[in-house]
């Protein structure tokens, strides 16, 4: 650096704290689609939300995530409110936050018009601690944490798939027989 006659004291540009590291799920909220032509069907809004490092096991959280997959948001909130698990409270908060963000930032018109397209859990950072047993014995305890990811999509929830009956299986079998071709022949 050149030290000349006109000296300025050092000015610090950092005036705000560093934000947390953004994972892939948070970055999905930043994609911008090009404007739709007037003839196209209206693209449903997709909102990605997550909560990181929840003090709960990912396997126990999975049961709740599987419960609300495919429900409408009102039904999911109702189910979680009367569920006794610890993770239910956390997931309920996450869903309410996501609903709020959808209405405010992502131009969603009706807050009840959302359904849960994807809901997943992931493994967080584990921490090892000592678990004290009797007679001076100890075990290494693993404190597990998890992440919870949810994707809300605008619109009514998709109708559930009808279960596969014997008739469907038979139809498929007959179709498979009919689609056989003769190989290496005239």
């Amino acid at each position, binding site marked *: 650096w050149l030290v000349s006659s006109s000296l300025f004291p050092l000015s610090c*540009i950092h005036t705000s704290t560093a934000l947390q590291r953004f994972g892939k799920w948070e970055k999905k909220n*930043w994609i*911008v689609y090009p404007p*739709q032509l007037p003839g196209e069907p209206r693209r449903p809004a997709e909102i990605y939300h997550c909560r990181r490092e929840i003090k709960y096991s990912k396997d126990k959280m999975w049961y709740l995530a599987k419960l609300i997959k495919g429900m409408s948001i009102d039904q999911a909130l109702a189910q979680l409110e009367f569920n006794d698990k610890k993770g239910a409270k956390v997931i309920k908060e996450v869903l309410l936050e996501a609903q709020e963000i959808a209405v405010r930032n992502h*131009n969603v018109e009706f807050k009840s018009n959302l359904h849960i397209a994807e809901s997943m859990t992931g493994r967080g950072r584990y921490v090892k601690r000592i678990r004290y047993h009797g007679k001076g014995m100890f075990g290494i305890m693993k404190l597990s944490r998890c992440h919870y990811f949810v994707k809300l999509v605008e619109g009514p929830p998709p109708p559930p798939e009808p279960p596969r009956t014997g008739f469907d299986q038979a139809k498929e079998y007959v179709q498979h027989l009919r689609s056989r071709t003769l190989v290496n022949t005239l």
Partner: protein
Amino acid sequence: MAAAMKAGLRGLGLRAGWQTLESVLRPAGAALPCLIIPVRTKKKRFSVPEWARELTPEEKERRLKSLGTVFPEEHMERTFYLACTADIIDPYIPPEGDARLTSLSKDGLKQKMEKMKRTAASQLALRKIKDHDPNFSSKTFPEKAQEIFIEAHNSLANFNKQKLHSLVTERCYPEMVRGNRYKTIRWSFVESLEPPRVVHIRCDSIVNRGNLYGQVTVRMHTRQILAIYDRFGRLMYGGEQVPKDVLEYVVFEKYLVNPYGTWRMHGKIVPEWAPPKEPIVKTVMIPGPTLDPSQEYEGTK
């Protein structure tokens, strides 16, 4: 430390980058300050020995000098550079019914309008501006102003931040850009219905006397097309085939004392009698009063 600062900024993940930050803090025209690192010497703690306690002042000075030089305590000061004022000085009050067909005589209205421009304060300010900028003329300026206006809106539609910073002051930039990061804006200028006119000039200094900023209000009656699409490409406001007639009073500002200052858009004046804007294509919920479980909601008036 400069290198560490740069690395820190990169780590923050700022997409804007070093150049735009610099352009905000030190816009075109300011000289580059030199950075120095103040060197702190180790703090020496000592007590004056007995034999040296009663000496003449010159001997004391000589003794202190021989013990070593002392650097003065440097306070880390953050310098700032004001490139624009915070608000519109003495905002212009547009006359009622400006762009509508009035029942009054056309000539009378025209005279009144021209008289407003010739008020003493505006003339004084015009003279002050001409002192600093001899090329300024209230006849040629409105066209340049309209060009700046069109360029600024085009670079807003294309999200060309570098250009937008050079065309628009720091006070106007967040007003234009807030909330538009994940939206697509389509704006186009169809035509100008009336030639733009300078309507109001003010000149003022902040902090120190002589730190002059000039503000000029230009009246523009134009036809524009605006369409805003949200993140998913759905139309939020306006329409691409719908031109709208717009009467605007746009304020332009320039840092007169700076030899490299330019005229930039500073803000808009919205009169109280302006017609309400078109509603957005969305239903919005207005929360009602919070009730106890025992109460019922009364009042659908």
